């Protein structure tokens, strides 16, 4: 079997002259430094020959202590559930990196993000239009550099974004947004259509850069949990857990068994209320408002349950560094409550799917082919509806998932129906998971441990299957034990471009339905 030492041998053999400080950490992580010119050969080796996926790219400003920028590449290797982290030093006076855009579409997006936030140019990138940057930032303003101060005034000159124009007879553009009807975040959608048929859709996001990653810097690790909970309002537990797991991995501490099970309960409760609300919202976008009203009622019941569990409707405060914060209240039969809720939800799903007008709208709409889903590195239900059998809970178990049994639903059609069905089946699995966790949950025992001191400038990461998909948090602390760099990857970051692909050849009035079936976070992408 292929294992981490084989991988080490392969990499050393192929790239030995460019590699330094190679070591194995935490059993399945291979860490090393690499020369800038070896990034492309490394990707070729990992991506094309050894079957690794580029999961994350993190840039870091180390000019004050090392006189250089650093870019970390994190690859995930499926066959033995391992990771490869390669770090490249980039001279402060020549901030460029060789682009991996032609090897990996996620890399293309990460490089554009790094270009906008750090001013490190990807050389050879086929499309380095700004991603995060809007014209309010002056050209020499790079907010994540350590010497960047908060923007006091914005550049007033509005520079139009270079949308690719499609020419031809009968072809016109529909600009939608950034301000929308309804309570959602800003995003501009530029449709190129022929009649009602969508030829191309380009989403221009990042209208509300909040400086989330910058806000982490200089905070104590314990202070970062609250911020992590607020990265994307509907993914409180997912982000908090990924953040805590990253720091726990860094410290090497083990979370108590009781807390691991509670973490499963909280994470699945979050999945429940979001998936159920999504089912209703998808039905509502077909005009079947009755299902929406009932799903919203169930969501409200779940939010009230959340409040009884953690004191907060969105489960804030449930996850803490080193464990969990709230045991189950003694007078609450959570398993029975969830049985009632699930029966209720199953009824609504049955009523919805018995309505042929509704199912007719879902079948074949917004198809994302398995190939495209794979190329874009999509995550979560979007990936699983398009034949990508990926679920961090099963593939790289965290918290207490290795002790629990559950199915991962996978569909091949990649349409709105498949994305809806993945959610419906996951709701059922989540209830089962919570009930198993309650069975195993010890009555007494520590809820959390205190983290030992954290090694400075060592990278570590946490990986969690949130309700939307895999979330990664990357952390590094400085010599005072304060956060030096936190990089957040919400699944929306890679799923947004896949939405554009799914829309091609659909009709304009089906866009809201496709969009709802993806239900991507603006805030999670626009940090």
């Amino acid at each position: 079997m292929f294992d981490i030492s084989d991988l080490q041998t392969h990499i050393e053999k192929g790239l030995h002259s460019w590699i330094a400080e190679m070591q194995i950490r935490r059993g399945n992580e291979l860490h090393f430094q690499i020369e800038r010119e070896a990034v492309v050969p490394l990707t070729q080796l990992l991506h094309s020959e050894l079957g690794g996926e580029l999961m994350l790219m993190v840039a870091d400003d180390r000019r004050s202590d090392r006189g250089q920028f650093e870019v970390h590449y994190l690859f995930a290797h499926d066959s033995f559930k391992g990771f490869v982290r390669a770090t490249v030093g980039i001279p402060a006076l020549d901030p460029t990196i060789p682009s991996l855009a032609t090897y990996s579409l996620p890399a293309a997006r990460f490089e554009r993000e790094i270009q906008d936030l750090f001013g490190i140019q990807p050389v050879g990138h086929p499309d380095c239009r700004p991603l995060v940057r809007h014209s309010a930032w002056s050209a020499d303003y790079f907010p994540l550099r350590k010497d960047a101060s908060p923007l006091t005034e914005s550049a007033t000159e509005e520079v139009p974004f270079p949308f690719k124009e499609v020419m031809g007879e009968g072809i016109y553009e529909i600009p939608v947004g950034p301000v929308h009807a309804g309570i959602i975040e800003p995003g501009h959608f530029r449709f190129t259509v022929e009649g009602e048929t969508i030829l191309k859709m380009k989403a221009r996001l990042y209208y509300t850069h909040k400086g989330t990653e910058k806000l982490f810097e200089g905070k104590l690790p314990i202070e970062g949990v609250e911020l992590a909970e607020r990265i994307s309002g509907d993914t409180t537990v997912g982000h908090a857990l990924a953040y805590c797991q990253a720091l726990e991995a860094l410290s090497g501490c083990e979370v108590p068994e009781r807390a691991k099970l509670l973490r499963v309960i909280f994470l699945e409760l979050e999945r429940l209320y979001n998936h159920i609300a999504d089912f209703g919202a998808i039905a509502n976008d077909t005009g079947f408002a009755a299902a929406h009203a009932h799903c919203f009622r169930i969501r409200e019941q779940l939010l009230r349950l959340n409040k009884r569990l953690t004191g907060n409707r969105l489960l804030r405060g449930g996850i803490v560094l080193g464990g969990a914060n709230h045991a189950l209240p003694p007078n609450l039969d959570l398993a029975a409550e969830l049985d009632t809720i699930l029966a209720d939800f199953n009824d609504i799903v049955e009523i919805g799917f018995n309505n042929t007008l509704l199912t007719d709208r879902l079948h074949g709409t917004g198809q994302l082919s398995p190939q495209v889903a794979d190329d874009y590195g999509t995550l979560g239900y979007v990936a699983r509806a398009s034949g990508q059998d990926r679920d961090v809970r099963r593939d790289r178990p965290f918290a207490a998932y290795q002790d629990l049994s559950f199915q991962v639903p996978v569909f091949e059609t990649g349409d709105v129906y498949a994305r809806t069905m993945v959610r419906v089946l996951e709701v059922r699995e989540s209830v089962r998971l919570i009930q198993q966790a309650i069975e195993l949950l010890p009555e007494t025992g520590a809820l959390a441990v205190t983290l030992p001191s954290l090694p400075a400038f060592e990278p570590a990461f946490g990986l969690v299957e949130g309700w939307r998909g895999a979330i990664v948090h990357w952390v590094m602390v400085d010599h005072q034990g304060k956060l030096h760099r936190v990089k957040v990857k919400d699944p929306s970051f890679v799923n947004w471009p896949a939405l554009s692909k799914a829309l091609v050849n659909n009709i304009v009035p089906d866009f809201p339905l496709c969009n709802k079936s993806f239900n991507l976070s603006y805030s999670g992408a626009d940090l």
Partner: protein
Amino acid sequence: MTNMMSYGLEIGQMLLALALAPGLVGLVRWLKARLQNRLGAPPWQPYLELRKWLAKDVVMSTNASWIFQATPYIVFGSTVTVTLLVPLIATPIAFDAVGDLLVVVYLLLLGTFFLALAGLDAGTAFGGMGASREMTIAAIAEPTIALSISGLAIGSGSTNLGQILTTTLTDPAAAISPSHFLAFAALFIVVLAETGRLPIDNPATHLELTMIHEAMILEYSGRYLALIEWASWTKFLLFLSLLANLFVPWGMATLVTLPTLALATAAWIGKLILLASAIALLETRVAKLRLFRVPELLSLSFVLALLAVTSSLVLK
């Protein structure tokens, strides 16, 4: 019937139609909310909306021409005219001779036509999108209306509304002919399309990209919006009244006396509530059709109308 009285009746039924239209739409909304297990806004909410819009300023696109400004008045004016031509509570009425069914239908379509123009006029993408969709639908709905009405006209030998009603009232056996049922079914589907109800258009959506009627009027605000919405609610009431009175005219006053008129008004409101409930129930049960399936549904209603005409000719 003296002239004074019949003109009084005309004015009375016009005012009544305008006054009841917001309430009827509010009732459908409220019933839908109740059927969806929601509390819903009270049925009189549309009156409050009208008051709000009338108090607000009008904001206009700099690209808009006179069409944009004239349209609300044309739409409202043509609808008010129709309230004078359709027998709502009594038959025959004084203006029967002024316009027949075809005039009624095309006056209503005149409003649709100008709304589509105004949708294009402001120069926004949504307006043009809504206008193009509305015209796609109107192109199929229009002949269906004319055809299904012909089904009735052939039976009574006249396109005059009062004449059709009188024939049905005096010869009830004719009202239960197959052609009446077919024409009713055809007209019911077309009414759903013309008044922007599910499964053709979703009157409750906020999603601009899926809208038809709402997309056309997105640019309107203030008193213009009030006029257009009031007209479209009145159009809804008129179509329901047509459905009710053409096919089930019983209860209408044939003599102009206070008790018969009171009774007829009650019967008319009762029929409207019944139809409104049916529409609320239908809208709760169905989902919106994919846009390209709408023509299929409308073609179905066209076929029904064609059958209505054929059967009335064959069975005559």
